[in-house]
């Protein structure tokens, strides 16, 4: 998997609701497509995404083959204090990609 892109505000007020945008480059082969010989191309997708704040899970998504190529996931969350937002993507083949951002809360 390649490097994910994550958009997180650098700072916020305590208790503010912020919007997080994430984008992971991935073909998301659904398992529905056929090759030129008519055989189904096996499924290979990112099947799991999670966002954790200071170790506490904020939200997670189980993705199926119907999620588009280069999965885009956006969500809102409340940010109570300064902390680290950790993001994780898991591929069908077990590969895990992680990245994190810090939010400063005044």
């Amino acid at each position, binding site marked *: 998997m390649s490097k994910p892109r994550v958009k997180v505000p650098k700072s916020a007020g305590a208790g503010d609701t912020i919007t997080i945008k994430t984008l992971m480059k991935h073909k998301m082969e659904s398992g529905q497509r056929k090759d030129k010989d008519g055989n189904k191309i096996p499924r290979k997708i990112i099947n799991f995404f999670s966002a954790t704040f200071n170790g506490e899970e904020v939200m997670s998504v189980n993705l199926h083959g*119907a999620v588009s190529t280069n999965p885009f996931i956006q969500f809102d969350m409340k940010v109570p204090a300064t902390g680290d937002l950790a993001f994780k993507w898991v591929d069908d083949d077990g590969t895990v990609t992680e990245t994190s951002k810090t939010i400063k809360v005044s």
Partner: protein
Amino acid sequence: MNISRRKALAFGGAALTVTLVPVSFAQAASEEVMKAAVDAFTGGAAIAEGGIELTTPEIAENGNTVPVAISAPGAKRVILLASGNPNPGVADFTFGALAAGNGSTRIRLAGTQDVVAIAEMADGSFAQVAKAVKVTIGGCGG
């Protein structure tokens, strides 16, 4: 290059067929499969309306990437189902205490169909909302 008038007419005629891809194509999951997906989530419990919003475009120009958004403040989980896809499951959201209970992503729709979102609320009750989406080019690689 000269295209014969007959060939040009045949080409034009073929280009006019099918802009909207209807749901009765062979790829759509059966009603039982859809019901099984719903029951797997709700355990067969009653589902109410209200408390969950689903935002989808009225017409999706490209079935390979259709933006959808769900919002169910206070929900523990929300699942998105595409009733006309070969497999109805699309994405299952789980929300922790800090989440606002919303999420958006982009999905593949095989053809014109209903997209359904079902939420499990904090009190264990279920609520759903469905939206019809017209798809001009199907997104299942077919």
